Protein backbone atom coordinates (compact mmCIF):
# COMPACT_ATOMS: atom_id res chain seq x y z
CA UNK A 1 0.00 0.00 0.00
CA UNK A 2 1.43 3.41 -0.99
CA UNK A 3 1.72 6.38 1.36
CA UNK A 4 -1.01 8.13 -0.58
CA UNK A 5 -3.47 5.25 -0.16
CA UNK A 6 -2.70 5.12 3.56
CA UNK A 7 -3.32 8.86 3.90
CA UNK A 8 -6.58 8.55 1.98
CA UNK A 9 -7.82 5.69 4.20
CA UNK A 10 -6.80 7.58 7.34
CA UNK A 11 -8.43 10.78 6.07
CA UNK A 12 -11.61 8.85 5.25
CA UNK A 13 -11.61 7.70 8.87
CA UNK A 14 -11.51 11.34 9.97
CA UNK A 15 -7.76 11.87 10.43
CA UNK A 16 -7.23 15.56 9.66
CA UNK A 17 -3.42 15.30 9.71
CA UNK A 18 -3.52 12.66 6.98
CA UNK A 19 -5.69 14.96 4.87
CA UNK A 20 -3.20 17.79 5.46
CA UNK A 21 -0.50 15.54 3.96
CA UNK A 22 -2.67 15.09 0.86
CA UNK A 23 -3.09 18.88 0.62
CA UNK A 24 0.67 19.31 0.95
CA UNK A 25 1.26 16.78 -1.85
CA UNK A 26 -1.32 18.08 -4.31
CA UNK A 27 -1.35 21.83 -3.60
CA UNK A 28 0.87 22.65 -6.59
CA UNK A 29 -1.03 20.78 -9.35
CA UNK A 30 -4.38 21.98 -8.02
CA UNK A 31 -3.20 25.58 -7.69
CA UNK A 32 -1.62 25.50 -11.15
CA UNK A 33 -4.84 24.18 -12.72
CA UNK A 34 -6.89 26.87 -10.97
CA UNK A 35 -4.39 29.58 -11.90
CA UNK A 36 -4.36 28.61 -15.59
CA UNK A 37 -8.13 28.34 -15.58
CA UNK A 38 -8.96 31.56 -13.74
CA UNK A 39 -5.98 33.70 -14.73
CA UNK A 40 -5.55 35.44 -11.37
CA UNK A 41 -3.46 34.23 -8.43
CA UNK A 42 -5.97 35.40 -5.79
CA UNK A 43 -8.85 33.63 -7.49
CA UNK A 44 -6.66 30.56 -7.96
CA UNK A 45 -5.76 30.49 -4.26
CA UNK A 46 -9.42 30.73 -3.27
CA UNK A 47 -10.50 28.11 -5.83
CA UNK A 48 -7.80 25.65 -4.79
CA UNK A 49 -8.70 26.07 -1.11
CA UNK A 50 -12.37 25.51 -1.95
CA UNK A 51 -11.42 22.45 -4.02
CA UNK A 52 -9.66 20.89 -1.06
CA UNK A 53 -12.64 21.70 1.18
CA UNK A 54 -14.96 19.97 -1.31
CA UNK A 55 -12.61 17.00 -1.41
CA UNK A 56 -12.57 16.87 2.40
CA UNK A 57 -16.37 16.93 2.56
CA UNK A 58 -16.79 14.26 -0.14
CA UNK A 59 -13.86 12.01 0.72
CA UNK A 60 -16.18 9.27 1.99
CA UNK A 61 -17.61 9.01 -1.54
CA UNK A 62 -14.18 8.63 -3.19
CA UNK A 63 -13.79 5.29 -4.96
CA UNK A 64 -10.29 3.97 -4.27
CA UNK A 65 -10.27 2.09 -7.56
CA UNK A 66 -9.97 5.43 -9.36
CA UNK A 67 -6.71 7.45 -9.32
CA UNK A 68 -6.89 10.08 -6.58
CA UNK A 69 -5.17 12.74 -8.72
CA UNK A 70 -7.77 12.36 -11.49
CA UNK A 71 -10.63 12.66 -8.99
CA UNK A 72 -9.04 15.67 -7.30
CA UNK A 73 -8.27 17.50 -10.56
CA UNK A 74 -11.76 16.72 -11.80
CA UNK A 75 -13.23 18.52 -8.78
CA UNK A 76 -10.83 21.44 -9.28
CA UNK A 77 -11.58 21.70 -13.02
CA UNK A 78 -15.35 21.62 -12.52
CA UNK A 79 -15.12 24.14 -9.69
CA UNK A 80 -13.19 26.53 -11.98
CA UNK A 81 -15.57 25.96 -14.92
CA UNK A 82 -18.56 26.75 -12.65
CA UNK A 83 -16.78 29.84 -11.35
CA UNK A 84 -16.04 31.07 -14.88
CA UNK A 85 -19.67 30.51 -15.89
CA UNK A 86 -20.93 32.44 -12.87
CA UNK A 87 -18.43 35.19 -13.62
CA UNK A 88 -19.61 35.38 -17.21
CA UNK A 89 -23.23 35.61 -16.08
CA UNK A 90 -22.45 38.40 -13.66
CA UNK A 91 -20.62 40.22 -16.52
CA UNK A 92 -17.41 40.80 -14.66
CA UNK A 93 -14.54 41.05 -17.09
CA UNK A 94 -11.33 39.16 -16.52
CA UNK A 95 -8.87 42.01 -16.44
CA UNK A 96 -5.28 40.99 -16.35
CA UNK A 97 -3.22 42.61 -13.66
CA UNK A 98 0.39 42.33 -14.63
CA UNK A 99 1.61 43.21 -11.15
CA UNK A 100 -0.60 40.57 -9.63
CA UNK A 101 0.93 37.76 -11.65
CA UNK A 102 2.47 34.94 -9.69
CA UNK A 103 6.14 34.25 -9.93
CA UNK A 104 6.46 31.01 -11.77
CA UNK A 105 9.42 29.26 -10.23
CA UNK A 106 11.73 27.32 -12.44
CA UNK A 107 14.27 24.95 -11.01
CA UNK A 108 16.22 24.74 -14.24
CA UNK A 109 17.47 28.19 -15.13
CA UNK A 110 20.43 27.80 -17.47
CA UNK A 111 20.94 31.42 -18.48
CA UNK A 112 19.09 34.69 -17.84
CA UNK A 113 18.31 35.34 -21.51
CA UNK A 114 16.64 32.01 -22.22
CA UNK A 115 14.97 32.20 -18.82
CA UNK A 116 13.49 35.60 -19.71
CA UNK A 117 12.40 34.33 -23.10
CA UNK A 118 10.73 31.34 -21.49
CA UNK A 119 9.00 33.58 -18.97
CA UNK A 120 7.77 35.87 -21.77
CA UNK A 121 6.45 32.87 -23.65
CA UNK A 122 4.77 31.62 -20.52
CA UNK A 123 3.08 34.98 -19.94
CA UNK A 124 1.97 35.16 -23.54
CA UNK A 125 0.55 31.65 -23.39
CA UNK A 126 -1.21 32.52 -20.12
CA UNK A 127 -2.83 35.53 -21.85
CA UNK A 128 -3.92 33.44 -24.83
CA UNK A 129 -5.33 30.69 -22.60
CA UNK A 130 -7.78 33.10 -20.98
CA UNK A 131 -9.56 33.54 -24.33
CA UNK A 132 -10.34 29.84 -24.71
CA UNK A 133 -13.60 28.15 -23.82
CA UNK A 134 -13.36 26.96 -20.16
CA UNK A 135 -13.57 23.24 -21.02
CA UNK A 136 -10.99 23.58 -23.83
CA UNK A 137 -8.78 25.48 -21.41
CA UNK A 138 -9.10 22.75 -18.80
CA UNK A 139 -8.21 20.12 -21.41
CA UNK A 140 -5.08 22.06 -22.47
CA UNK A 141 -3.95 22.60 -18.87
CA UNK A 142 -4.47 18.95 -17.98
CA UNK A 143 -2.63 17.82 -21.12
CA UNK A 144 0.40 20.11 -20.98
CA UNK A 145 0.79 21.16 -17.36
CA UNK A 146 -0.38 18.01 -15.61
CA UNK A 147 0.84 15.56 -18.29
CA UNK A 148 -2.50 13.76 -18.33
CA UNK A 149 -3.26 11.28 -21.09
CA UNK A 150 -6.29 11.84 -23.32
CA UNK A 151 -8.11 9.08 -21.41
CA UNK A 152 -7.37 10.74 -18.07
CA UNK A 153 -8.57 14.10 -19.43
CA UNK A 154 -11.74 12.42 -20.65
CA UNK A 155 -12.33 10.91 -17.20
CA UNK A 156 -11.56 14.18 -15.46
CA UNK A 157 -13.80 16.35 -17.63
CA UNK A 158 -16.46 13.68 -18.20
CA UNK A 159 -15.93 13.70 -21.97
CA UNK A 160 -15.23 11.01 -24.54
CA UNK A 161 -11.66 10.48 -25.82
CA UNK A 162 -12.53 11.68 -29.38
CA UNK A 163 -14.11 14.78 -27.86
CA UNK A 164 -10.91 15.46 -25.92
CA UNK A 165 -8.81 15.03 -29.08
CA UNK A 166 -11.07 17.38 -30.97
CA UNK A 167 -11.05 19.97 -28.17
CA UNK A 168 -7.23 19.86 -27.93
CA UNK A 169 -6.91 20.25 -31.69
CA UNK A 170 -9.33 23.17 -31.71
CA UNK A 171 -7.64 24.77 -28.71
CA UNK A 172 -4.17 24.58 -30.30
CA UNK A 173 -5.48 26.21 -33.47
CA UNK A 174 -7.23 28.93 -31.44
CA UNK A 175 -4.05 29.54 -29.44
CA UNK A 176 -2.03 29.80 -32.67
CA UNK A 177 -4.54 32.35 -33.94
CA UNK A 178 -4.28 34.36 -30.73
CA UNK A 179 -0.49 34.01 -30.69
CA UNK A 180 -0.20 36.29 -33.72
CA UNK A 181 -2.43 38.92 -32.14
CA UNK A 182 -0.18 39.29 -29.09
CA UNK A 183 1.96 42.46 -28.74
CA UNK A 184 5.34 42.39 -30.47
CA UNK A 185 7.36 42.45 -27.23
CA UNK A 186 5.78 39.14 -26.27
CA UNK A 187 6.55 37.48 -29.61
CA UNK A 188 9.40 35.02 -29.50
CA UNK A 189 12.07 34.36 -32.02
CA UNK A 190 11.81 30.92 -33.50
CA UNK A 191 15.11 29.12 -33.54
CA UNK A 192 16.13 27.31 -36.70
CA UNK A 193 15.38 23.93 -35.23
CA UNK A 194 12.85 22.79 -37.76
CA UNK A 195 9.72 22.27 -35.74
CA UNK A 196 9.63 22.64 -31.95
CA UNK A 197 8.05 19.27 -31.78
CA UNK A 198 11.00 17.42 -33.22
Amino acid sequence: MTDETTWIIQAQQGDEDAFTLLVETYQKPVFNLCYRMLGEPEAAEDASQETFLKVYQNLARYDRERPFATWLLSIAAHHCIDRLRRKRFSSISIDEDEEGQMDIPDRFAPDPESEMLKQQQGEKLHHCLQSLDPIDRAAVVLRYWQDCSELEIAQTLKLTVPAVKSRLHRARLALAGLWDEQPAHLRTERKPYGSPAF
Partner: protein
Amino acid sequence: MDHRPFEDWLHDNPTLSTDQKRQLNAHLRTCTSCTALAEVKLALETVSLAAPAAGFTDRFTVRLAARKKALKRRNFWGFVILALSVLGLLGLISWPVLKDLIQSPVNLLASWFASLASFFTSFQAIFRAGMVLFKVVPGFIPTYIWLVVLFAAGGWSLMWVVSLMKFTKIPQGV
Protein backbone atom coordinates in the same frame (compact mmCIF):
# COMPACT_ATOMS: atom_id res chain seq x y z
CA MET B 1 -1.81 28.34 -48.93
CA ASP B 2 -2.07 24.61 -48.38
CA HIS B 3 -1.08 23.73 -44.80
CA ARG B 4 -1.32 19.98 -45.25
CA PRO B 5 0.45 17.83 -44.18
CA PHE B 6 2.45 20.33 -42.09
CA GLU B 7 -0.43 21.23 -39.75
CA ASP B 8 -1.09 17.53 -39.13
CA TRP B 9 2.59 16.94 -38.37
CA LEU B 10 2.55 19.79 -35.87
CA HIS B 11 -0.59 18.44 -34.16
CA ASP B 12 0.21 14.73 -34.15
CA ASN B 13 3.98 14.68 -33.46
CA PRO B 14 4.93 11.88 -35.86
CA THR B 15 8.58 10.88 -36.38
CA LEU B 16 9.69 12.76 -39.48
CA SER B 17 12.37 11.82 -41.99
CA THR B 18 15.16 14.29 -42.80
CA ASP B 19 13.42 15.20 -46.03
CA GLN B 20 10.10 15.83 -44.26
CA LYS B 21 11.87 18.01 -41.66
CA ARG B 22 13.41 20.05 -44.49
CA GLN B 23 9.99 20.47 -46.13
CA LEU B 24 8.47 21.53 -42.81
CA ASN B 25 11.25 24.09 -42.21
CA ALA B 26 10.74 25.53 -45.70
CA HIS B 27 6.97 25.80 -45.09
CA LEU B 28 7.44 27.45 -41.69
CA ARG B 29 9.63 30.15 -43.26
CA THR B 30 6.72 31.25 -45.46
CA CYS B 31 3.59 30.38 -43.45
CA THR B 32 2.77 32.58 -40.45
CA SER B 33 -0.16 30.49 -39.18
CA CYS B 34 1.90 27.27 -39.08
CA THR B 35 4.75 29.21 -37.45
CA ALA B 36 2.33 30.40 -34.78
CA LEU B 37 1.15 26.82 -34.28
CA ALA B 38 4.76 25.63 -33.94
CA GLU B 39 5.51 28.38 -31.42
CA VAL B 40 2.40 27.52 -29.42
CA LYS B 41 3.44 23.86 -29.37
CA LEU B 42 6.92 24.82 -28.19
CA ALA B 43 5.50 27.07 -25.50
CA LEU B 44 3.05 24.38 -24.36
CA GLU B 45 5.76 21.75 -24.16
CA THR B 46 8.07 23.88 -22.02
CA VAL B 47 5.53 25.17 -19.49
CA SER B 48 6.24 25.16 -15.78
CA LEU B 49 3.84 24.73 -12.85
CA ALA B 50 2.69 27.82 -10.99
CA ALA B 51 3.07 27.35 -7.24
CA PRO B 52 0.89 28.87 -4.51
CA ALA B 53 2.39 31.27 -2.00
CA ALA B 54 4.13 29.60 0.95
CA GLY B 55 1.88 28.43 3.80
CA PHE B 56 -0.93 27.09 1.61
CA THR B 57 -1.55 24.08 3.88
CA ASP B 58 -1.66 26.29 7.00
CA ARG B 59 -4.18 28.59 5.33
CA PHE B 60 -6.23 25.54 4.38
CA THR B 61 -6.20 24.27 7.99
CA VAL B 62 -7.45 27.67 9.19
CA ARG B 63 -10.18 27.73 6.53
CA LEU B 64 -11.24 24.16 7.35
CA ALA B 65 -11.55 25.02 11.05
CA ALA B 66 -13.61 28.13 10.21
CA ARG B 67 -15.85 26.12 7.86
CA LYS B 68 -16.42 23.45 10.54
CA LYS B 69 -17.31 26.13 13.08
CA ALA B 70 -19.74 27.76 10.66
CA LEU B 71 -21.30 24.36 9.91
CA LYS B 72 -21.70 23.63 13.63
CA ARG B 73 -23.36 27.04 14.15
CA ARG B 74 -25.65 26.47 11.16
CA ASN B 75 -26.63 23.03 12.47
CA PHE B 76 -27.40 24.46 15.94
CA TRP B 77 -29.62 27.23 14.58
CA GLY B 78 -31.22 24.77 12.16
CA PHE B 79 -32.13 22.52 15.10
CA VAL B 80 -33.50 25.47 17.11
CA ILE B 81 -35.65 26.63 14.18
CA LEU B 82 -36.90 23.08 13.56
CA ALA B 83 -37.75 22.52 17.24
CA LEU B 84 -39.60 25.86 17.45
CA SER B 85 -41.50 25.07 14.22
CA VAL B 86 -42.58 21.65 15.53
CA LEU B 87 -43.69 23.16 18.85
CA GLY B 88 -45.57 25.90 17.02
CA LEU B 89 -47.30 23.38 14.76
CA LEU B 90 -48.28 21.19 17.71
CA GLY B 91 -49.62 24.27 19.50
CA LEU B 92 -51.65 25.24 16.45
CA ILE B 93 -53.15 21.75 16.05
CA SER B 94 -54.00 21.35 19.73
CA TRP B 95 -55.22 24.93 20.16
CA PRO B 96 -58.98 24.05 20.57
CA VAL B 97 -58.18 21.67 23.46
CA LEU B 98 -55.59 24.00 24.92
CA LYS B 99 -58.08 26.88 24.84
CA ASP B 100 -60.64 24.83 26.85
CA LEU B 101 -57.97 23.71 29.26
CA ILE B 102 -56.89 27.28 29.87
CA GLN B 103 -60.44 28.67 30.17
CA SER B 104 -61.97 25.92 32.40
CA PRO B 105 -59.49 23.23 33.39
CA VAL B 106 -61.78 21.64 36.02
CA ASN B 107 -64.65 21.09 33.54
CA LEU B 108 -62.34 19.61 30.91
CA LEU B 109 -60.66 17.24 33.37
CA ALA B 110 -64.10 16.20 34.74
CA SER B 111 -65.36 15.41 31.22
CA TRP B 112 -62.18 13.40 30.50
CA PHE B 113 -62.65 11.37 33.70
CA ALA B 114 -66.34 10.81 32.89
CA SER B 115 -65.44 9.49 29.40
CA LEU B 116 -62.78 7.23 30.86
CA ALA B 117 -65.20 5.84 33.48
CA SER B 118 -67.93 5.25 30.86
CA PHE B 119 -65.42 3.42 28.59
CA PHE B 120 -64.29 1.25 31.50
CA THR B 121 -67.90 0.37 32.49
CA SER B 122 -68.82 -0.53 28.87
CA PHE B 123 -65.73 -2.70 28.54
CA GLN B 124 -66.60 -4.52 31.78
CA ALA B 125 -70.18 -5.21 30.58
CA ILE B 126 -68.99 -6.55 27.21
CA PHE B 127 -66.41 -8.75 28.94
CA ARG B 128 -69.06 -10.24 31.25
CA ALA B 129 -71.45 -10.96 28.35
CA GLY B 130 -68.59 -12.63 26.45
CA MET B 131 -67.72 -14.85 29.40
CA VAL B 132 -71.36 -15.99 29.69
CA LEU B 133 -71.49 -16.84 25.96
CA PHE B 134 -68.14 -18.66 26.20
CA LYS B 135 -69.53 -20.89 28.94
CA VAL B 136 -72.96 -21.55 27.35
CA VAL B 137 -72.36 -21.82 23.55
CA PRO B 138 -69.91 -24.85 23.48
CA GLY B 139 -72.66 -27.02 24.98
CA PHE B 140 -74.94 -26.37 21.95
CA ILE B 141 -72.32 -27.06 19.20
CA PRO B 142 -71.53 -30.70 18.27
CA THR B 143 -67.89 -31.89 18.34
CA TYR B 144 -67.57 -32.46 14.56
CA ILE B 145 -68.33 -28.74 13.94
CA TRP B 146 -65.40 -27.86 16.17
CA LEU B 147 -63.17 -30.21 14.16
CA VAL B 148 -64.26 -28.61 10.85
CA VAL B 149 -63.60 -25.13 12.21
CA LEU B 150 -60.18 -26.22 13.50
CA PHE B 151 -59.14 -27.76 10.14
CA ALA B 152 -60.43 -24.75 8.19
CA ALA B 153 -58.44 -22.37 10.42
CA GLY B 154 -55.32 -24.54 10.00
CA GLY B 155 -55.71 -24.62 6.19
CA TRP B 156 -56.21 -20.85 5.98
CA SER B 157 -53.13 -20.25 8.13
CA LEU B 158 -51.00 -22.53 5.95
CA MET B 159 -52.17 -20.80 2.77
CA TRP B 160 -51.45 -17.43 4.31
CA VAL B 161 -47.90 -18.40 5.31
CA VAL B 162 -47.12 -19.94 1.86
CA SER B 163 -48.45 -16.93 -0.08
CA LEU B 164 -46.55 -14.57 2.22
CA MET B 165 -43.28 -16.43 1.55
CA LYS B 166 -43.92 -16.46 -2.19
CA PHE B 167 -44.75 -12.78 -2.58
CA THR B 168 -42.22 -11.33 -0.18
CA LYS B 169 -39.14 -13.12 -1.50
CA ILE B 170 -36.32 -10.45 -1.40
CA PRO B 171 -33.57 -10.74 -4.04
CA GLN B 172 -30.12 -11.39 -2.55
CA GLY B 173 -27.25 -8.91 -2.76
CA VAL B 174 -29.39 -5.77 -2.78
